[in-house]
């Protein structure tokens, strides 16, 4: 009789444990995004312009260099930060200046930003500056997009495709 009780107790324990796992491995459902929302991902990896134009070495500078290091042009490694602005329906939704990566600040500037917006039609304006200028933007893209619920709109930067692209 005692063995029956023990077996029943063990069955209760295993059943309870399985129930715990069964419930919390499926429930409650999780929605990463509200039902009427879409997602805009603004992201790019872009090298800003060099902070100074390349110029020829002076004779004195060349003399200081080892013979195998003498090149015709001297180019600064440091690059300008990249500034991006995103307007949605005329209002600024995001503005960010991405510093160049690397110890010498000669790497790419990177941005990754998620923006959850209501689905539907939106007027999107993206501006990007990759020079040392302190005002104005040298790239701009405007578009009207119709975002379906749960749709992901990607805003990227691709120089080969003319700069700012919407995917």
């Amino acid at each position: 009789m005692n063995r029956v009780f023990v077996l029943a107790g063990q069955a209760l324990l295993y059943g309870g444990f399985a129930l715990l796992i069964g419930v919390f491995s499926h429930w409650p459902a999780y929605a990463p995004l509200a039902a009427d929302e879409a997602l805009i991902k603004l992201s790019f990896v872009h090298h800003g312009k060099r902070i100074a134009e390349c110029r020829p070495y002076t004779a004195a500078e060349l003399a200081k260099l080892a013979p195998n290091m003498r090149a015709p042009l001297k180019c600064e490694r440091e690059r300008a930060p990249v500034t991006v602005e995103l307007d949605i329906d005329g209002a600024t939704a995001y503005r960010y200046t991405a510093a160049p990566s690397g110890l010498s600040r000669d790497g790419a500037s990177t941005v990754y930003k998620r923006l959850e917006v209501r689905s539907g039609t939106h007027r999107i304006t993206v501006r990007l500056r990759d020079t040392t200028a302190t005002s104005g933007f040298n790239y701009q893209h405007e578009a009207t997009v119709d975002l379906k619920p749960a749709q992901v709109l990607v805003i990227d930067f691709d120089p080969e495709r003319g700069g700012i692209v919407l995917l």
Partner: protein
Amino acid sequence: MTVSSSLLPIVPVPSASARLWRALEHGFDALAGTSGNPLKHLGALGFWLLWLLVGSGAVLYAVLDTSASGAYPSINMLSREPRQWGSLLRGLHRYSADAMVLVVLAHVVREWMLGRFRSFRAPSWLTGVPLLPLMFACAIGGFWLNWDRLGQFSATATAEWLDALPGLASPLSRNFLGGTQLNDRLFSLFVFVHLGVPLLLVFGLWFHVQRISRPAVFPPRALAIGSVLALLVLAAVVPVRSQGPADLGTVPAGLAYDWLLLFIHPLTAATSAALVWGLLGATLALLLALPWLGFRRRTAVPEGRPQEAQVRSPATSHTAWRPIALAQPVAEVDPAHCSGCRRCVEDCPYAAITMVPHPNGRMGMELAQVRSDLCASCGICVGSCPSSTPFRSAQVLHTGIDMPQWPIDALRQQMLTGLAALPGPERYVVFGCAQGAQLDALAAQGVLVLPLVCTGLLPPSFVEYALRAGANGVLIATCREGGCAFRLGERWTRERLLGQREPRLRAGVPRQAWSLVAADAGDEAALAAALTALRARAAEPFVPLESFA
């Protein structure tokens, strides 16, 4: 009567958390039986679930198409296999991971509540903490391999979480931008995460169990079978299904979500990646710091125990930082009485004893050597030593390995003196685990109570010796099965007394003259009942010691 305070073992007072955990264990004991109590085999169950994951994962890997475009159809087809074997296998794999997380977290809580993270246990604790994030990394990576909507969400959320760390040249999240397809090279990285991290986990587990002997990597058979059956039934009743192929152009909606394994993503979404990183870092730092927290190095000599002052070696400047440098007595080997039989090596629960060539230089002869930083001061080695028999005629009983604070000779003397002092006509001796049931209540007239830090310290021949010295009966009170503070003390005591392990209690000792009872704190009624039963059946005094000699 009880022995003088100079021989009482130093036993830490159980904390409120320890008492609470023991109460929970006792509840499970009542429900499922002591040997089938999962709370007493959490570490072994964790290993068992890992073996299930490895076995089921190997079969799943064989059918997995390891390309980004082929992974989903290959696993989905397995789930739709008409005879349900694929679905069962997939369910077993997923639910084993869920179960492992629960069991391992319960294992951590148990060790913490019982205070088992300091001193000689600190290495096991410290090597166990890093395994927790590894375990979750293995589990989360498994969702990506399926590359369904849930896998897509988890991979994207993980990348966004990792991007919060400084130093990445390019955001990992760019791999999951909409309008692109996941490339096969990245998918190979997923495979590596889900295969490589478990290998690291197994390697880490090897470190984790290095400081203990006979690590339990398989639970008792009943628990192993029961857990597999429970998981298979769950897999059949609630099959694990893919949630549609991944599509980076849309955000998954309404996911059937595994909160046990993937809770970190909603937590990050509800707070911030930086906060979750901070929480994770703080939790791990706290767990790693526990062996040092709330612990004051003991320097004062306890009242009435001057012998401890002689054996305690102060922490040196280069070991003072170590949590294992707890000042506690260490077993001492007497080369003149150590025969090199290796029984102490076999029985030590913490692998603290090794054999070295005997200094006497005799070919092939070995000597036990104790590593002081591993010694738990439990005395189980003393109980295993054949030289610990009290029947040796030397006036002072020297044994091969002894605890300096509770020398075996003192135990013999205490027993003989105590027995002689009992008024009679009936005399009983109780050897009890000081960390088990309260023994004080037994110290009535005619009963000599000898508390031991662990009953594993007791050489079985002491039972016969007590009977021959005039005791009518001997009661040995261990803690409950699976509840030994020193892992193996209860088991070794039981097996030695029942003649299943060396050194054995001699078969000629009348069975009705001694009794073995397993009683934790709170089981005092069972202890008293065992003594009453022993009194009722105990025979006349055994052949007296004088005639034996």
